[in-house]
């Protein structure tokens, strides 16, 4: 019996669960314009996972990277939820570098 997928699956469940937390908190204090940076971190994690010889580390880093990419697509909707009052709204957000340029881009949403 191969337990590898089971344990990676359980770990991924926690990684996805953690994703909800950092998307909500991250958007509240930093704003949705950080989405390209979150996506970049995710892509770097997935690429880095290719170079890890340990299967556990590679699988977990890959799942972590995917959750960052997914999180970057959730930021926009989370920002609207905050503005609608469904989540606490923090008006002094720490904007990312090049925020004015990023504002002109269409934020991804699944």
């Amino acid at each position, binding site marked *: 019996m*191969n337990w590898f997928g*089971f344990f990676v699956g359980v770990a*991924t469940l926690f990684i996805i669960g953690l994703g909800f937390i950092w998307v909500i908190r991250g958007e509240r204090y930093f704003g*949705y314009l950080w989405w390209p940076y979150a996506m970049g971190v995710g892509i770097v*994690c997935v690429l880095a996972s*290719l170079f890890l010889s340990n299967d556990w580390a590679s699988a977990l880093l*890959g799942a972590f990277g995917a*959750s960052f990419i997914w999180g970057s697509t959730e930021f926009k909707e989370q920002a*609207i939820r905050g503005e609608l009052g469904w989540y606490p709204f923090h008006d002094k957000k720490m904007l990312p570098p090049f925020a004015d340029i990023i504002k002109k881009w269409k934020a991804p949403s699944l």
Partner: protein
Amino acid sequence: MELNGIGLASAAATFLGVWIGHVSVRKIEREVDRIWIPSTIALLLGIGLELASFWTSSRVLSTIGGIASVTLLGDALEFYRQQERIKKGHAPANPNNTRHARILATHPGATTIDWLACDPRGFPYSGEELKPVKEKVK
């Protein structure tokens, strides 16, 4: 240096599992009257993939099965959570769906408005701004 494809398989299974699950749950919950049916199908598929992940000797296939399994098991639960969002008005109700029509009739917060379809504007909406929009549509 030899590349390890397990991380890529894990990333693809996680992203596609979350993406496909997220979109399908919203679409299916919107159209289907009895959500226990798709929820049970997702549950059975999740259990099936979990078992398959135990039986394969390949770590890549086991990873894909294990991750797809947990996302499907999550989706089985997510059908009911989506219904709760409809009741609160956090997701748009479909008046052509008899279950949603009942929710619209019995839950004052339920609406057909998709609040998340717009872009963020940078500051909160006031109750006075939202009320006329909601009353106009409902």
